[in-house]
């Protein structure tokens, strides 16, 4: 007889912590709903003029980006997973580099490069013999297709990493079987590898689309009116916070349906590859001219997504340094950025670890199962929207505390959460919780539950199991999650802009301030630093992946087969 999961006994430390985090995550959304309910007049106007067009643009952008990253990400992953050509190892790393670039930095760099009086078109005109820019009209990057390209090149690594993992670790069996049955390369890819990788493609595309919708800078720059831009604009230009909250909620629904779509695409029909699929896929050697051609083809995404714009950025920064010298605040801003990111990472990853372990250690408890899900809401909410909600929450908390203290006879307290380092850290933790939780959960799912159970049977309590079993075995997962978390915190912009304390500047806010003024080149050095920090986790993650992929020194088939003969008793 199935036991009904009792709620109360599950309220141990894990449960309480999970409830706290869940509440924190939901608070800004609730605040948004309250705000949205408070406004009336403008919304009808908004929903007839702004929202329809913005929704269409957003949907088209999302679809376009999803298609682009799916094709480029999967194609490049297949290339480096199944073909060994000169420079493959280098390409494996290069293809990940666009992760280090925030989308709006990429947008600006390319706009600069491709402007009619920028370096590329000027050179082209020189080559073709045109003197005036007006004589050679090329398509403008500032358009929906242009935006799809920019976001696509910035975000394809999400799909690339996910599908490459699948190809390397789980596709070997079916791929070899298909080859033995006479299937050529393209048939193997389309009929076997791609269907197997479909969940990974779906997950990567969802991440890319969410990043696209979160962005405020690049879309504005490339003159694509997304819903996020509408939210921002409604609030900023019309001071219509309730109206903005309403659009924000519409966005949330849009995103939630997107997430459900992803869940459907990912779930599917029991796609788990049966059996002990421990073989790694061995890439086929391609040498000579064909190998070089493959390298060049594979280099394209990395070229457009990182190498060319990075070089441009470095050149601009160097130019600026030569012209105007080093800005005095850069060192302080870097320190503050690192401090903020490090604190948020420590807390966020710790919270994710606790919630993921909590779910595992309380099977069947709805509270513990729901906690990580609820806490992940922050990721689906664009930074601006989350920050608006949190602003309201913090203000309310501060006011409440102040009233309480005054009632108890004390001096009025100042700002506790509003405009505080703590408030900003909480915002970042909520925003990126899902990043950490997803990575840790994937690794945790690979640990057999029997490990936990044997520890419990041997006398350890739940928290002790987490300490003794999860912590040591999941350390690489924690480290990986921490890296991604750290970099995203460093690049984060809208929430930081809104919630930061007095005089607190991060590299990204500095950069945006310059962009707001149009003096982007002043921010080039800050941009370079952001990108440099963004490179760190890529290098480390690649190193870890490389170690796991070292060529076998033991022959295959070395499984736990019993020895020959009738066997001893």
């Amino acid at each position, binding site marked *: 007889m199935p036991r009904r999961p009792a709620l109360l006994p599950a309220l141990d430390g894990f449960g309480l912590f999970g409830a706290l985090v869940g509440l924190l995550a939901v608070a800004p959304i609730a605040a948004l709903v309250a705000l949205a309910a408070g406004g009336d007049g403008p919304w009808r106007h908004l929903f007839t003029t702004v929202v329809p*067009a913005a929704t269409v643009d957003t949907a088209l952008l999302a679809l376009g980006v999803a298609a682009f990253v799916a094709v480029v990400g999967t194609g490049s992953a297949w290339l480096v997973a199944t073909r060994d050509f000169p420079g493959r190892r280098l390409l494996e790393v290069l293809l990940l580099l666009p992760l280090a670039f925030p989308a709006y930095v990429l947008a600006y760099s390319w706009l600069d490069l491709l402007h009619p009086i920028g370096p590329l078109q000027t050179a082209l005109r020189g080559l073709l013999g045109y003197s005036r820019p007006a004589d050679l009209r090329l398509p403008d990057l500032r358009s929906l297709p242009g935006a799809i390209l920019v976001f696509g090149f910035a975000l394809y690594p999400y799909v690339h990493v996910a599908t490459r993992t699948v190809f390397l670790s789980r596709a070997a069996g079916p791929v070899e079987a298909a080859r033995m049955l006479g299937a050529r390369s393209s048939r193997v890819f389309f009929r076997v590898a791609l269907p197997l990788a479909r969940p990974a493609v779906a997950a990567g595309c969802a991440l890319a689309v969410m990043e696209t919708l979160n962005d405020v800078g690049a879309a504005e720059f490339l*003159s694509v009116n997304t819903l996020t831009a509408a939210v921002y604009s409604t609030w900023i230009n*019309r*001071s219509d916070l309730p109206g903005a909250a309403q659009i924000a909620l519409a966005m949330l629904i849009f995103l939630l349906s997107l997430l459900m779509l992803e869940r459907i695409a990912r779930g599917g029909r029991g796609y788990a590859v049966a059996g002990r699929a421990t073989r790694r896929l061995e890439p086929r050697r391609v040498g000579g001219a064909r190998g070089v051609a493959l390298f060049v083809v594979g280099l394209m995404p990395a070229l457009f997504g990182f190498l060319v714009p990075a070089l441009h950025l470095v050149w601009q920064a160097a130019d600026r340094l030569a012209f105007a010298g080093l800005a005095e605040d850069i060192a302080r801003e870097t320190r503050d950025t690192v401090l903020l990111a490090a604190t948020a990472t420590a807390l966020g990853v710790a919270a994710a670890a606790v919630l993921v372990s909590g779910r595992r250690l309380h099977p069947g408890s709805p509270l513990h199962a729901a906690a990580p899900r609820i806490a992940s809401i922050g990721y689906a909410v664009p930074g601006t929207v989350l920050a608006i909600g949190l602003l309201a929450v913090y203000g309310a908390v501060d006011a409440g505390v102040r009233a309480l203290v005054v009632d108890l006879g004390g001096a009025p307290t*100042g*700002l*506790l959460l509003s405009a505080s380092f703590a408030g900003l850290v909480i915002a970042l933790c909520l925003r990126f919780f899902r990043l950490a939780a997803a990575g840790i959960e994937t690794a945790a799912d690979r640990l057999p539950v029997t490990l936990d159970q044997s520890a419990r049977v041997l006398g350890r309590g739940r928290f002790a199991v987490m300490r003794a079993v999860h912590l040591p075995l999941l350390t690489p997962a924690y480290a990986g999650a921490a890296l991604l978390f750290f970099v995203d915190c460093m690049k984060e912009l809208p929430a930081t802009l809104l919630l930061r304390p007095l005089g607190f500047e991060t590299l990204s806010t500095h950069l945006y301030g310059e962009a707001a003024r149009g*003096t982007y080149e002043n921010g080039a050095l800050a941009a370079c630093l952001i990108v440099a920090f963004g490179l760190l986790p890529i290098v480390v993650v690649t190193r870890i992946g490389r170690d796991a992929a070292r060529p076998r020194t033991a022959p295959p088939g070395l499984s736990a087969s019993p020895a020959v003969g009738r066997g001893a008793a």
Partner: protein
Amino acid sequence: MTKKPTAAALLPMFGFCAAVAAVPAAAEEVNVYTTREPGLFAPLAKAFTEKTGIRVNTVFVKDGLAERVAAEGTASPADLLMAVDVGVLAELVDKGVTRPLTSPVVERAVPANLRAADGSWTGLSMRARLVWADRSLGLKSITYADLADPKWKGSICIRSGQHPYNTALIAAAIAHDGRAAAAAWVAGIHANLAKKPSGGDRDVARDILGGLCRIGVGNSYYVGLMRSGRGGAEQKAWGDGVDVLLPTFEGGGTHVNITGAALAKHAPHPDAARALVEYLVSPEGQRVYAEQNFEYPIVPGAAAEPTIAGLGPLTVDPLPVAAIAAHRKEASLIVDEVGFDR
């Protein structure tokens, strides 16, 4: 990796923030919340500190200044709220986060149409919305109404219609000609656009040079920034490569927006704030605005920076800027209805 309970890690930060917030109001500083990029305000702050010894703490709040201050409530450390657009100033008053700054110095120095009647805010400097044109056109003058003329079809570059600089211009048009006429005018400009509104004012100059359009709209101080070479050789080329014209409203003058300041309702250092504002409208302060930021001084008679002055005499539109603020929401609605940014 050791796990730290969240609460324990937050406590030190709570303590830190409380300590900072509980610092008693010393007379030696003033806290300024500004929507103006710190780099632009810094020279003024520095000069003020040098003169008076009062330290200036600046917080750059790009968006949501009013919300931020309102959320901070009575404990807000803000003394002076500065904005680069009259609409924001009016909004601050609407949200009830300001109180009137009574200063005879300000009332004497700043013309009445450039400050609030009840003293709740005052302008500190002006920026005019100008038209930039392709040199080869040889254009000598233009009115704002001309921009909607079909002869300019496919020729206009401008930034987003929802940007405060543009909604202020449209609001001024509403105040002059009424809503319907202003809507028609905006639709006319929309029909003349060479490309979708995007980028900033400086991009307009670049786009004109790049042959993407023939005329564009931009603010006066950008001209100074570009032509002075302060932005680098490339931007100097942009600034030098376009003609700059001072357009006018029919029967009026050139549209200007103001940067201004308002006193925060719960300011801990109101006297220091007043001193700062009075400094800013003094000849020294106005000179810094003009020379450092290439803006038009608000005090009549103060000299503009030579590059700016060289653009021609500025006839300030006599419309009270408060009226612009009043029509801002309408202007924004018109932009949406016309589908200007699409």
